[in-house]
């Protein structure tokens, strides 16, 4: 089952065919919700519930026109811009702060490095809720609730230890001789970080950037507690207003907007799937 026994000598083609058939069947089932989403976003209201057909009887593009108008008088473009701003800020913050911290942990020596590193690893497992309420109170005291600061600022302070760890693991794999050579050429730690180590760490930084973007884009909880003015809403939060409404007349526009909200992730996935899958596969277990 786990190995292809070429030693057996007889053709095992049927086995391979069965595997592909099985995988394709599984794939069809798994893709069904996505196909359903796309189909429903194009269905007229009366077909959404009544019909079991995946394909719409007639294409209802007006769903998308309604979705573009947005919710609460805020257009989809505005919501999209807000989402992009938050995700973009998070990417810059995470890449910058996590690579700085990772360099110190991976390459420099300082007092308490061991305990601090252990603490950093432990925070990967820390449930977000343990720090949530005081963080909210702090941002509230600073007058930052209902702004984007609570969503972006923490990323500039390397609070997502998972990425620090990811970059540390990658930097540890780089040959030491590079820095030795740079030091002999007169580079201080800053110069050798920016000119030698950082360019070589690019694969890990790209992985960090892509995952940060997608996770921030998908994040719902943090946005839910920190943002309440409709014009500051992200696409995810705007979709929330459909959560309470269950009338089927809003189904088409709701799923049209869902498609729009998924589009950046799908595009990211298609463009970077190699990095994403490799990044996931290498996320710290190989050492």
């Amino acid at each position, binding site marked *: 089952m786990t190995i*292809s026994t070429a030693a057996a000598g007889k053709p095992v083609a049927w086995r391979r065919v069965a595997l592909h058939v099985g995988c394709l069947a599984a794939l069809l089932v798994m893709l069904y919700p996505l196909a359903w989403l796309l189909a429903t976003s194009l269905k007229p209201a009366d077909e959404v*519930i009544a019909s079991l057909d995946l394909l719409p009887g007639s294409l209802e593009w007006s769903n998308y026109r309604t979705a573009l108008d947005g919710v609460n008088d805020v257009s989809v473009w505005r919501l999209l811009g807000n989402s992009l701003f938050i995700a973009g800020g998070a990417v810059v913050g995470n890449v910058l702060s996590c690579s700085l911290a990772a360099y110190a942990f991976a390459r420099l020596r300082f007092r308490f490095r061991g305990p601090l590193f252990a603490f950093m690893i432990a925070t990967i497992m820390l449930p977000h809720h343990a720090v949530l*309420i005081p963080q909210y109170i702090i941002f509230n005291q600073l007058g930052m609730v209902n702004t984007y600061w609570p969503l972006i600022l923490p990323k500039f302070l390397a609070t997502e230890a998972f990425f620090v760890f990811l970059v540390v693991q990658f930097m540890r794999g780089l040959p030491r001789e590079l820095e030795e050579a740079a030091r002999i050429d007169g580079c201080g730690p800053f110069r050798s970080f920016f000119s030698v180590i950082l360019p070589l760490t690019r694969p890990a930084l790209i992985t960090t950037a892509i995952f940060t973007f997608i996770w921030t884009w998908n994040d719902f909880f943090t946005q839910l507690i920190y943002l309440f003015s409709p014009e500051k809403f992200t696409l995810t939060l705007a979709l929330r207003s459909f959560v309470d409404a*269950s009338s089927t007349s809003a189904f088409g526009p709701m799923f049209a907007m869902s498609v729009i909200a998924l589009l950046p992730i799908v595009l990211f*996935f298609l463009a970077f799937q190699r990095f994403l899958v490799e990044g996931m596969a290498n996320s710290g277990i190989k050492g």
Partner: protein
Amino acid sequence: MTTTEIPATARTRQPDPPGKRPRTRRREGAAWVFLSPWVLGAAVLTLLPMAVSLYLSFTDYDLFNPPRWVGLRNYTQMFTEDPRYWRSVGATLTYVVIAVPLQLGLALVVALALKSMRRGRGFYRSAFYAPSLLGASMSIALVWRAVFNDGGTVDNLLGTGGWVNRPGWALFAVALLTVWQFGAPMVIFLAGLQQIPAELYEAASVDGASRRRQFLSITVPMLSPVIFFNLVLQTIQAFQVFTPAFAVSAGKGGPADSTLFYTLYLYDRGFVASHMGYASAMAWVLLLAIGAVTAVLFRTSRNWVFYASEGDR
């Protein structure tokens, strides 16, 4: 990782004369400059909040009036007077126990299937991984609600009625959404499987070991660190599930509190009902529970996780 040994020789090359200490001190200073964003974040956004939430858990606090010390009252109320709290604990534990093994089991089976594949492995790997990224979104959570609703696809196909409206079933709809996202652990399993040396299997075949025997004696032990990694990671994440439960139940945890996950109830107590002290107590119990579960997993792992580099243990 082995390269960390090299600088030792580099350093002995030129021992610092007594008067030249500032050189190492400058390097130490540099380390703290690199570390400063993280130190600030760890202090202000992690350590301080943990201490504050512990303090708040012993108070009555509504965000507007100063916190009032109530001792253990939040905890006693939680454990003895609040049936909804226990329903949220029950829903979360049920969900973790259903979703995590199913998800990991499916991930392992698919990873094993893909490993033996010569063509198309890359394609399937990416395709199965896609739901792991999309599934965390509100968009898919809304799809789930519609598909599992009365008159939705599942109702029409299976004639079971809508799952999300039935107390005994709504939890399964959410669990299935998690199982659907088996791609992330699958990719990690596949990476682990590909690192098992082929010679082990060859030697076992020569010795006449059956496939079953090879699976149990080679694949499982060699993969056990990865199984453990996935188990810990997915369990911790499952305890904190929020978005799908919020979407499926319109933020209420219904029907009959069946999808009132722990985090949903914590959100409800803290940010809807403004009982920040109570929510803080809930957060600390969650922290301790996740810590305890992780500790138990680590403790039991000694019996079944095999680290090749450490030899037989």
